[in-house]
């Protein structure tokens, strides 16, 4: 097997990390914003 496969796996792992990380951050921010809205109402 090509010994550079590790670089390829790293590139796809970074992709997953960035996209899933951002989606999770949005989810957390949404929960916080919902709490703020409920507190005000």
């Amino acid at each position, binding site marked *: 097997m090509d010994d550079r496969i590790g670089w390829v796996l790293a*590139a796809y792992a*970074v*992709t997953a990390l*960035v996209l899933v990380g951002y*989606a999770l951050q949005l*989810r957390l921010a*949404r929960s916080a914003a919902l709490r703020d809205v409920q507190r*005000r109402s």
Partner: protein
Amino acid sequence: MVATAVMVSVLAVLAWLLWLSRDVPARAPSSRSVGAAALVLVPLWLALVVFYAPLEVTQGVLQKIFYVHIPAIIPTYFGFTLSALGGAMFLRTRDDRWDHLALAGAEVGVVFCSLMLLVGPIWAKPAWGHWWVWDLRLTTTLMLWFIYVAYLFLRSFAFGSDTAKTFAAVYGIAGLAAIPFVYFAVDLAQGSTMHPSDPSREGLPAEMGRTVGAGMVAFVWIFGWLVAKRLELAFLQARALAPRAGEGV
């Protein structure tokens, strides 16, 4: 065929986002279908990367990184264009919903631009022996990233202010001028660039072209879903900050 699929996806996602941004609370559930489409497209694209796209003769398995690096440019340009469109419409109508769209487009565009800038060096180190070179394509892409990161800083420092929204709209439209420099950087460098030229102009083998195209389509739908989630968040944040009845100035 591949270009058509990418174009149809971009136009469909654009039309849906424009429709969604008009009434986010009522129309937000439609993002589930877009998320589901992205969840189907991602494994299909990965299956093409692993089982369908042939190994490139000189680079071998390392070239598989291109199937994530190249597709990330479409949502990057899409996000910044959406930001300029939202900004222009905000200046025209003063409707906050356009401002939310401009902010969401810029933020998700920055996420995909960051992805491109992170994955590129992972390919460059084993291929060129350097993580980064101050090549025209790389430098202009980094500049584009800085322009929109500055836009996001501006938005976060002056949250909710009408002056900030107006300034951000103008800035977002002006920032779009950097895109042609990035796109044509390889031509502008006249052969003195290390970055490979646009693969669509070089004529990729059909299997490789289809795999890049599948990545672009998958990323466009992921982009659409993320922008929808960001729009929901912008709406909630604006609602949380809105003055209550009888709380006026």
